[in-house]
């Protein structure tokens, strides 16, 4: 099992990643997932996170098989 991590819009451009898969028992929260992908860059203050397509907090727990998405404020409509 693994964790699928996705980045969207300007945040994807900024970190240079759109999608990656990580595995590792060290990833306990969404914030851990960010650190596993984006080493050395703090989470931008306006970044949003979703776990399995639902808005979440960076401190929320994640588990193997989850999909975690990081993105900037939305601008649709």
């Amino acid at each position, binding site marked *: 099992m693994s964790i699928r991590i996705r980045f969207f819009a300007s945040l994807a451009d900024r970190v240079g990643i759109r999608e990656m898969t990580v595995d590792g028992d060290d990833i306990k929260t969404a914030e851990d997932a960010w650190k596993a992908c984006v080493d050395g860059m703090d989470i931008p203050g306006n970044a949003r996170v979703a776990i399995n397509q639902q808005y979440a907090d960076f401190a929320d727990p994640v588990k193997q098989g989850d999909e975690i*998405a990081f993105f*900037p404020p939305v601008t649709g409509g």
Partner: protein
Amino acid sequence: MRVEILESPFDPLHEVAKHQESLLAGQFGAMAVFVGTMRDFNEGDTVTSMVLEHYPEMTQQHLLDLARIVADQHKLTDLLMIHRVGEIHPGEAIVLVAVWSAHRAAAFEACEAMVEDLKSKAPFWKKEQLVEGESRWVEHNTAGPRTTA
């Protein structure tokens, strides 16, 4: 109820008329419609086109959940929501929200609730193409009618 994400242009008023044909006359007493269209200017620059990116799996679920909640809360007769993604040009519709209800209060309130939620929570992002050839992400939406900028 119809909720759809489209990759090609659509005629919002035609979609409203077509949807209303499926409703029985006399079932509703009010209809409210919001159409958001693309401008050819933003922040002092001429914009020639834009690309609307989204998070497909989350967008679909978010819009469906939103439609069900608002329809239930406001006891709507019916609801239609269409949102574009992909490349969009000035004048084209970006979003359509149409609601039918027994009375005007529910229609106005439900339409506004749908629009404000999707503008602040549905995972879509606009990237503008400027006339000079440069492109840029839109960083935030403008404030709604009941929020302070």
